[in-house]
């Protein structure tokens, strides 16, 4: 099989003649290339030949046929060197002189960044709001929406409130209980809507399962999960005979933030 490194540009007739010449020498006829084609031939030549044969001048009659002109040895060597230099990539790695004489100049100075001390790298990062919504963490599945399941929570809450108010005796002062309740958590309390600007909310009773910034989610005895907005409603919470009324419009904070909030004293509140 004849190997070709470059697609022949030359004359087909020439090639045919070359083939007729019977030589197994294969060379590419580059437009700018001169007669000394021995390098390519070297790479591509499949024929086995001596080096001497390569360096000889092309015979006169072959010159006429090929239409090329042989050059002197010196010129050919120079050309070859130049051609090689142009075509072969200079690998700087081999430029040892340059490397030894190379002087590095520091233009700027910066300390390499230390890796931040990972505080609590073992702590769970937590989810942001989008992830929470996607994972539906705060949604209660329908099979869990049963009133009986939340009654133990209510008992727990009652105990918590009684402990918080140092035992809810009939003699405790309402102000003290009020102060404590303002900062208390109401999850698990049984709340009733006593007054509301919207009449259909009035009378709904249930255990508070989730408290958000603007709504209460309660579960009623009929196992219905109701969402009641806090605004414009008054809720009643009863513990051991102490009935407190919560004015929802003033209660619109997250349960966690409410413990830090100071409430102003107001005379009367109108819905």
């Amino acid at each position, binding site marked *: 099989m004849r190997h070709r490194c470059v697609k022949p540009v030359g004359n087909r007739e020439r090639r045919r003649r070359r083939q007729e010449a019977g030589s197994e020498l294969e060379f590419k006829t580059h437009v700018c290339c001169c007669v000394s084609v021995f390098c390519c031939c070297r790479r591509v030549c499949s024929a086995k030949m001596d080096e001497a044969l390569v360096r000889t001048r092309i015979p006169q009659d072959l010159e006429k046929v090929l239409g090329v002109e042989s050059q002197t040895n010196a010129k050919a060597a120079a050309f070859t060197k130049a051609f090689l230099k142009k075509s072969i990539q200079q690998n700087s790695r081999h430029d040892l002189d340059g490397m030894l004489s190379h002087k590095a100049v520091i233009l700027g100075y910066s300390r390499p960044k230390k890796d931040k001390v990972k505080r609590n790298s073992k702590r769970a990062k937590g989810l942001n709001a989008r992830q929470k919504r996607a994972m539906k963490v705060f949604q209660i599945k329908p099979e869990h929406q049963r009133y009986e399941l939340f009654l133990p929570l209510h008992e727990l809450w009652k105990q918590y409130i009684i402990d918080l108010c140092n035992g809810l005796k009939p003699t405790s002062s309402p102000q003290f209980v009020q102060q404590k309740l303002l900062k208390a958590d109401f999850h698990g309390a049984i709340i009733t809507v*006593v*007054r*509301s600007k919207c*009449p*259909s909310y*009035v*009378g709904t009773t249930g255990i508070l399962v989730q408290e958000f910034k603007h709504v209460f989610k309660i579960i009623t005895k009929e196992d219905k999960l109701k969402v009641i907005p806090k605004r414009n409603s008054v809720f009643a919470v009863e513990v051991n005979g102490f009935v407190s009324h919560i004015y929802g419009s003033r209660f619109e904070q997250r349960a966690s933030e409410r413990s830090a909030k100071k409430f102003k004293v107001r005379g009367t509140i109108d*819905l």
Partner: protein
Amino acid sequence: MNMSVDLDQTPRSLLVCDWSSFLDDKNRVSSQVEQLHFNYKVSVLLPECSSAPAHLDSVLNSFSSFYLIRNLPIHELLDKQFLETAVYQGSVYGLSYRTRIDEDNCVALMPNGRLSLSLDKDSYQLLGVEGKPSRFSNRTNSRYVISIDLTDNSMAPGGRGYLRLLTGLMSRLHLTTDFLLSHHPGGGASLQPLLSRYDWSEHRPELHSHALTHLSCPELQSCDPHSFLEWLGAVDADISCENSSISFLSSLVCPEPKTTLSRVLRVSICGLLLPQDVHRLIQEIRCYLEQPQLESWLSLTVHGFVDSPVSWGGREHGVLRGGENFYTLLMFHDHTYHLHLATGAHDTCPP
């Protein structure tokens, strides 16, 4: 000056004047009379009479009696037995007594089975039944009206609407008022089960008659409505119309041209009066006018309740300066009549 323009303004009042004849098919007197459910006072002016004619007297005396229940809890009006015996058969007229429409909660039970509650804001927010803000409230809604049709399917005993209202009235808002009650045609018998449970008393409408002499009277056919009503009011209130123009105290005079009546009889009857009785009275008066007599006219004035939540046909009624809703029927011997219907500021146009 701008200030004087504002000082000139008075609350709106409406006067509707109908001139027609009883013989005209399109006359609407009977419907206009029927639609004013709660009548307080009927006063009749009989010219050239010293004593009431027998027929009129008998009709006046046969006005239905009414009942006053003290401290009736309003949820009793939703009692199943009461609904079946009284509300569904015949017509019940009920109105809360001594409740002011601009201050307290008022209740009215109309003959077509509609219960109308006019509540202030706190009571409405406590009760929890859907209602509408009053048409006559200013920017801040301080009055709410709940109107319920007791004959509707959802309000049948056991229905959802019925239970909601019942629990509201029993547990959330304990609405208790004195209540005036009357029933047509059954009278006290159909109301007995309800009455027996509470402190009740029966009352007959009060009848007063007064004879006046030498009264100047305007020319009725051509008199303009306001002057006529003023003259009629003066007669009703015993105000003298004989004032000389230089009098210091009063310059009220009878509208010109005028005649003099030697005697006039004024009869009035007060209480919770039924429109059916008023209708009967009008028919009786028409018969009386057909007889030939000296004077050929007769005037009848019917006043509605000032504190009733409803006026003609269930329309909302309120009190701004005075809650007048009355009508005056001036009847002539040739079956023509002049009907004047008057309302105050917090009222819609009479029918």
